[in-house]
């Protein structure tokens, strides 16, 4: 069996393909690049990849179509959406449809690398790609799922709406497992408004990579979990309880809840 190629990138822009390839090769990954959805799907059917990087705007069929076809074909390779139409709506939709992450263009090398690392670690954890078309483990096998009453943005972050209307925001255990040991956490400023699918905090891991946490729901910040600053390891130990990030007042609750996945369906 040929060694699985690490990464497949699907993007119609040559400079993007070349750039990604350059960065990945420098990072020691093997990579293939195609320019449209059809070729991408063809490759996915033939080869086994560890990770797919896919643009949303492609000729003929878009990135969502690729996601869809992959699901139908039972291809479980994790997919990261990259897109030039960096509107948050795209991000939210992608994550709901099953993409494991979202990187808006233009991205720096670091942003790309962090994303790839997370994706690959996720793939390892799920034991995907090691065997062709293996179904891999369930997410709950490798990480603690979110409590039933939570709602999650893809597999990245969660929000819990409490009885008094306050929203509690945090990261998922799976996300924390996909980053190396956390070194530091950075919040955003208090008087900033959080917007769904926009970065709301950054986590720096021991390997020097910086990971952005995408916010699950728009709102105004009430409090930040300041005790995470000296003890960022709480994020790994207890992400759903004492490892919460923010308390917010949601500004568009009803509408945005539709874009999240209720955690009750993971059980």
């Amino acid at each position, binding site marked *: 069996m040929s060694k699985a190629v690490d990464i497949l990138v699907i993007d119609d822009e040559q*400079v993007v393909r070349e*750039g990604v390839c350059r960065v990945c090769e*420098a990072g020691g990954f093997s990579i293939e690049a195609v320019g449209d959805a059809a070729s991408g799907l063809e490759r996915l059917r033939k080869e086994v990849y560890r990770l797919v990087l896919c643009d949303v705007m492609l000729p003929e069929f878009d990135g969502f179509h690729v996601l869809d076809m992959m699901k139908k074909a039972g291809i479980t390779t994790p997919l990261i959406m990259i897109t030039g139409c*960096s509107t948050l709506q795209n991000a939210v939709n992608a994550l709901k449809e099953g993409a494991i992450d979202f990187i808006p263009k*233009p*991205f*720096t*090398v670091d942003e790309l690398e962090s994303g790839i690392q997370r994706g690959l670690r996720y793939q390892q954890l799920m034991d995907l790609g090691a065997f062709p078309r293996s179904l891999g483990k369930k997410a709950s096998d490798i990480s603690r799922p979110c409590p039933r009453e939570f709602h999650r943005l893809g597999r990245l972050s969660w929000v819990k709406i409490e009885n008094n209307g306050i929203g509690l925001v945090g990261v998922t255990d799976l996300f924390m497992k996909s980053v190396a040991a956390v070194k530091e956490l950075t919040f955003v400023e208090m008087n900033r408004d959080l917007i769904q699918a926009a970065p709301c905090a950054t986590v720096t891991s021991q390997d020097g990579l910086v990971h952005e946490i995408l916010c699950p729901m*728009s709102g105004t910040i009430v409090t930040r979990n300041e005790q995470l600053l000296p003890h960022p390891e709480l994020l790994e130990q207890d992400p759903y309880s004492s490892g919460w990030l923010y308390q917010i007042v949601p*500004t568009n609750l009803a509408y945005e809840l539709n874009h999240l996945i209720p955690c009750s369906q993971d059980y």
Partner: protein
Amino acid sequence: MHMISQLARKIGFKLIVVVGVTTFVTMGIYAYITIRTQRADLFAEVERHAMQLSETVRNSTRYDMLLNQRESIHTIINDIGSDPAIDEVRVLNKEGKIIYSSRKENIGKMVDKQAESCYACHAADQPLQRLSMSQRTRVFRIHPDSARALGVISPIYTERSCWDADCHAHSKQQQVLGVLDVTFSLADADERIRASAFQVGIFAISAILAASFIIGFFVNKWISLPVGALLNATKQVGGGNLSYTVPDLGKDDIGMLAQSFNTMTMKLSEARLQLFQSDKMASLGRLAAGVAHEINNPLTGVLTYGSFLLKRTQNHPELQEDLKVVVRETLRCREIVKSLLDFARQSIPKKTASDMSEIIDRAVAVVEHQVSIKGVKIVKSLEPHLPKMTVDPNQMQQVFVNLIVNAADAIESGGGTVTVSAKLLQLAPQGVAQVKSACCPKGHNLITNDFKIDGLPAIRVKARYEGEEGFMMLDPVYGRNRNHFDLNVKARTEFEMVCPECGISLLEEQGKCEKCGSRLLSFVVPSHGEFEACVSKECGWQRWLAVDSAGKQEYVELIVSDTGVGISKENLAKIFEPFFTTKGQKGTGLGLAVIWGIIDNHDGTISVESELGVGTTFTIRLPLKRQPAQA
């Protein structure tokens, strides 16, 4: 034929025809009846006359007859018969022989009992002994083509002195001794009747013609011409010319229709404008999204390779510095594109709790570069900790971008400053709260869009004073009193105020002004109680309980001012009107109108002050809470 059928469709023509026919029929009947009546009257007159004469003749010859003075009787009869109106006077004896006559040739002739002069009595076998008045007269023609004649028969009844006389001419048994027959020529009377009929006929025809012309003239003036003008206007507007206005067509129904039509056209053009604007914004949004997407790809190339190089040259500090600049500026591009996309996303105005300072920051970031090229500095003076406001952040950002760009444009070469400031205010409703809807007791709308005071629709009330009538436009801003009067009213007088639609009085029965004791004008602001105002021009006292009881309200005041060329007084008044621009070809004239709409939609107010050569200041006031009084 085509022309005629076209003509037949016109209202004016139909009206004229109907009226003409009616007049014709009416006048015709009138003329006919008049002529007949006149004829009958005249005839009756002549008849009476004839009867009288007949009686007179009989009476005047009676004595002579008794004495059998034949010569005398002849003379009398001849004399009387010589009157030109009298055709013949004759006396017939009981046998039917003409014994006396004014026509000598007839004396001695026998008259047939069947002749029409005898018919009245001798029609039956037995002659009538007595004759009624109407039976004694007959109308006939002496000769077929001669004039008409009227004959009166006066039977000479017997009396005692007739048969008792010595001459024994008449026996006792005879009732009727003879007949006096007077024949009158009716030529004269007929002539007069003809003349009179002619006159009536002429009158009738003239009346019909005159009526037709008058009707025709006024129908044309009051109906055909205005309808034609309106028809023309609908064609113009239908063809797309929305700035066409119908000329003033007077104060009647059609005049009102014309006015209403103009209002409708104006509203249509405003609506079309809004549509254009949203169309424009939508295509602008699409353009911006397309541009952003196009830019993002090459930008990715630059950023990816740039940051890559930065990483690779970690051991080359001198290269690092330069590469850092590249990466930093590319990141900045990224931010600008992001804000461009956010800005262009002009979907449904979504109001969310927003931080005004942030919106202003974003707006300034968008225009900062292009503005600084001109040497214009942007100074921000934002009060810290401004509370969040429920606004559409994209629209608000649009407002600021527009105002700042306008401000920068107003600054000529040489540089200048644009200042943007924001602060919190507490304002009492007086001078701030606006009446957006007002009704008379019967429910008619008093707000008029035709007259604006400082850009806001005024409250229109009809005022009556000493027989004169006029309109009063009230300032819709509570307590500001920048009212306009139509009527020339002396100071310190009161006038009657009524609803322009139904005339119902708007003055309060009981209340009195708390300041000067005059009467109070009052109307209802739907859902917000009653609004009272003193009628005295000088006093200006007003009370609006619903708004007063809500107390002072918090507002955020946003100011954009520049040190530019300023705006002249004439232009200042028109500045928020759609399509008004001082930028010639460059300006669309829509910017400020759209801004006005956005601010109005947020229940706020925008005003402008300017001084030529010094600068201009735009002031926006937005209520913090959704005001109950700003329905």
